[in-house]
């Protein structure tokens, strides 16, 4: 972004065009008590002074922690080629591909991304991406209500509490009847879940693996939902699909995911990647851009934005959604990452994550007073019961150089002593050993 000067002369010129004598006259209609009385912005610094100041401030962050924290966002290795390719200006500066004749590269990238997402999830059609996993789940809920014309949503509490908060926030002023189904021993209360599905339900929203890392096969829930004319929405952790049964194979109607694990670095607030895919039957009800392949007048393959009639620049207030952008660069990273790993690589990655997590369970379970919750199978994230408050333990572990995990008490009542631990392929046997030793010393030092 260049610095855009705004000189006194330019301001005077603009005011004269508008016909106002001064800035105060321009803002005369804004009541005095609504105006800012001046901004508390210090005077300018030189570039080196500013750099030093920001650099010093950055050291107040906890640096280079060995990461055992997950909750939907994971510390996976990113091949250097992903960064290198992302920095090519053809990707980095590309504008929305409204003009296919000028945007074949961008359009093909998105098309390849959509194809990869379909193969990974076992679905027919994916969109060009949404903002993040949470907004994708919200869009899926709205899509299910559009298709069924119903207003009740069954929400598994194994769905990330962050996503559930986003769902409630986005829909606060809509009359939607959310019914949350409790988790029992880390897993969906199957009976309650099946019993809750009836002819008034628009969707059942599930997550696999769930927030506790627990793996499930929701085929039976999906089948019951379909018996009742209800849509099945499944939120997934893309990396886990290298080894787990795909939501498509479970019969899901809409699949969403946070795409961060596919080659995006962990960063405070994103940008992340909202993945969404559905069946051919429902593709016209799916929000967002979709790129399609076609042939030009000479029979050559070309790519275009397709099914745009669903979108708001044509359908205005009757559009499928008010989503009007996508995360093209993040989606490009995801398809680069998936291409570099390939089918076998994704499978190996998932197996490594799962095996290392199982090793960590064994190692951490040997610590006095630490209990590994084993009531259900997990992928690469699991729950530890600690002898004291997990939030305090997390703080103590930062001093030891570890992001130890997520204190579950923050979102689940009565779980103050429970810690959610994630293990990715990046964690070595040594790191897991050092983590266990650090945890033991933090728990039993005194």
């Amino acid at each position, binding site marked *: 972004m260049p610095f855009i000067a705004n000189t006194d002369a330019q301001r005077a010129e603009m005011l004269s065009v508008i016909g106002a004598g001064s800035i105060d006259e321009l803002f005369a209609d804004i009541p005095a008590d609504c105006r800012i009385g001046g901004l508390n912005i210090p005077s300018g610094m030189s570039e080196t002074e500013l750099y030093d100041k920001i650099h010093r401030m950055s050291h107040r962050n906890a640096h280079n922690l060995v990461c055992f924290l997950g909750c939907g966002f994971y510390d996976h290795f990113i091949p250097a080629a992903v960064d290198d390719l992302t920095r090519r200006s053809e990707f980095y500066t590309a504008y929305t591909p409204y003009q296919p004749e000028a945007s074949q590269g961008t359009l093909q990238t998105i098309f390849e991304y959509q194809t990869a997402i379909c193969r990974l999830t076992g679905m027919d059609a994916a969109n060009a991406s949404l903002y993040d996993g949470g907004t994708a789940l919200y869009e899926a809920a709205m899509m299910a209500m559009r298709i069924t*014309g119903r207003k009740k949503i069954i929400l598994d509490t194994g769905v990330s509490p962050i996503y559930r908060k986003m769902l409630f926030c986005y829909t606060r002023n809509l009359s939607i009847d959310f019914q949350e189904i409790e988790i029992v021993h880390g897993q969906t209360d199957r009976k309650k879940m099946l019993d809750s599905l009836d002819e008034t339900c628009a969707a059942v929203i599930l997550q696999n693996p769930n927030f506790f890392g627990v793996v499930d096969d929701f085929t039976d829930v999906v089948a019951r939902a379909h018996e009742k004319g209800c849509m099945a929405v499944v939120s997934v952790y893309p990396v886990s699909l290298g080894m787990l049964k795909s939501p498509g194979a479970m019969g899901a109607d809409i699949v969403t995911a946070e795409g961060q694990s596919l080659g995006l670095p962990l960063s405070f607030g994103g940008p992340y990647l909202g993945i969404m895919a559905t069946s051919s039957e429902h593709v*016209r009800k799916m929000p967002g851009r979709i790129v399609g392949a076609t042939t030009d007048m000479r029979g050559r393959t070309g790519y275009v934005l397709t099914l745009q*009639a*669903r979108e708001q620049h*044509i*359908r205005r207030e*009757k559009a499928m959604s008010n989503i009007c952008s996508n995360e093209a660069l993040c989606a490009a990273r995801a398809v680069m990452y998936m291409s570099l790993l390939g089918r076998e690589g994704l499978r190996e990655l998932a197996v490594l994550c799962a095996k290392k997590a199982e090793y960590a369970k064994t190692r951490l379970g040997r610590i006095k007073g630490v209990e590994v919750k084993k009531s259900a199978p997990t992928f690469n994230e699991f729950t530890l019961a600690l002898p004291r408050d997990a939030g305090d333990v997390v703080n103590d572990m930062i001093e030891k150089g570890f992001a130890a995990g997520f204190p579950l008490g923050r979102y689940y009542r009565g779980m103050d002593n429970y810690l959610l631990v994630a293990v990715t392929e990046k964690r070595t046997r040594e790191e897991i050993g050092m983590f266990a030793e650090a945890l033991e010393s933090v728990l039993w030092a005194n």
Partner: protein
Amino acid sequence: MKPETLRYTKEHEWIGQDGAIWVVGITDYAQKQLGDITYVELPKPGKSFNAGESLAVIESVKVAGDIYAPAGGTVAESNAAVEKSPEIVNQDPYGRGWICKLSGVVSTELDKLMTADQYAVFTSGGRK
């Protein structure tokens, strides 16, 4: 359906009686304006509409728009053939390309609609 026996709306829908049922479609003029029709989102049987409410959505290569109910009624049947082959709306708008059938239409509501002659004047911009 015979176009001269039908009633017409300003939004270019037609409606005609077939026994106890009323058939709804879009006019030949409308299909020409739309160009190649690519998709029609049909109403679900059993759903009721008031006159002027959006009954269906039609998409062509040029545009997407609503098909409005020419009169109040309940959808008795939607034309599944149109869902599979939307081009039949272009080919035969008064025949195979019908959109849906309504029951419970109050026939006096149709009095407000244009006759074939009036519609011909309407679509020629008042000149005939």
